[in-house]
């Protein structure tokens, strides 16, 4: 499988915040979710990848080419959706499109029209009057209309209602049906990813915690609940994190089998991505 994006040794300081030696790769034909709490470094990572903020060190390769040297060629193939959509408020969507379109060699006017229609957007509406959901959809239309091979999006779903989020996920899945497409998006709403992601990358405090296949992650980790009297230091060590009350404990672990043999009365459940994320960053 080819990698569409390779980030290696990325460092960036921002006041007291630091990205520390960030390394990861995005496989082709996959939706990769980039998760972490607010302030973990998701936006800084994305902006550094795109060259919107200068990085202190590190290399970014997209489609096998160095981002610094081939920026124009590479960006022609990337669709970008940022949290704060960079639009001129006074223009209509149609006028905004006329400014953006000439920048891309593969602009597809038919695709633009059909996307606008599908997303229920009126090209003559002024950008200043758009709701948050409409802005995100318009950004997405622009990203999809230049036949991008890689979509990079920063928190595209934050602040959107569940119905629009669901629509958004279906658009992504539709986009992925074409061969050679890839998506990278950050979110702190991990339930968005339960349904659509192929890969999950977790960042915390400026460092990559893991980069895993989603299904493998969900198969490996289990939520284990049981009797607190049966917890000893030895079993405690088998957990990633654990919460105890007088009546029960609930923990997240990849050693469910060992714990089963150590404790008599336990329940195991399948976790959601959020449980695993909290297990990693929530501590013991």
């Amino acid at each position: 499988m080819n990698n569409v994006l390779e980030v290696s040794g990325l460092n960036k300081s921002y006041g007291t915040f630091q990205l520390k030696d960030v390394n990861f790769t995005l496989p082709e034909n996959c939706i990769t979710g980039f998760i972490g709490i607010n302030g973990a470094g998701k936006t800084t990572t994305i902006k550094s990848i795109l060259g919107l903020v200068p990085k202190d060190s590190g290399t970014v390769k997209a489609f096998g080419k160095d981002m610094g040297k081939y920026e124009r060629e590479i960006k022609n193939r990337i669709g970008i959706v940022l949290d704060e959509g960079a639009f001129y408020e006074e223009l209509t969507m149609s006028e905004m499109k006329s400014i953006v379109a000439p920048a891309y060699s593969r602009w597809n006017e038919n695709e633009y029209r059909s996307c606008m229609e599908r997303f229920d957007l009126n090209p003559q509406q002024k950008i200043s009057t758009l709701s948050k959901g409409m802005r995100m959809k318009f950004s997405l239309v622009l990203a999809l209309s230049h036949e991008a091979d890689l979509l990079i999006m920063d928190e595209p779903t934050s602040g959107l209602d569940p119905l629009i989020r669901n629509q958004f996920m279906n658009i992504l899945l539709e986009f992925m049906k074409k061969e050679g497409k890839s998506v990278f998006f950050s979110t702190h709403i991990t339930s968005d990813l339960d349904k659509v992601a192929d890969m999950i990358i977790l960042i915390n405090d400026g460092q990559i915690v893991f980069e895993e296949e989603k299904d493998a992650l969900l198969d490996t980790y289990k939520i284990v609940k049981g009797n607190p009297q049966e917890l000893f230091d030895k079993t405690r060590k088998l957990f990633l994190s654990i919460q105890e009350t007088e009546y029960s404990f609930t923990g997240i672990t990849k050693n469910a089998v060992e714990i089963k043999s150590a404790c008599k009365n336990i329940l195991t459940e399948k976790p959601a991505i959020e449980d695993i994320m909290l297990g990693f960053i929530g501590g013991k």
Partner: protein
Amino acid sequence: MNILISNVSDKPLYQQIKEQIKDAILKGELAEGVLLPSIRNFANDLQVSVLTIRRVYDELEQEGFIASQAGRGTFVSAGNIELLRDSKRHLVEIQLQEAIHNAKLFGISKDELNAMMDILYEEEETK
């Protein structure tokens, strides 16, 4: 073909999917030459990762149940399935031969052996 994915099963997702496809092929629900869905479409429909489906397809191909043709898709390849069915049959035959051999050795008659078989078969079914 039906595929049911259990959230409470201890079996990994890819294994659950793989076994159900294999069953469908062995039972003939998926006939030779049938085109399987593309990896992405299948993944979207089952709401699992494309990487999981890719793994399922790769393993089924290694085991000779399916064959992928570049640019055309992935097909059920039944040439091997007849062989597989035969080899399974062959396996049972060998085990039966062994049982018959032992039965003769211990002076157990054919009728007794048949009766034994009936009882054990029923027991296995009600398990």
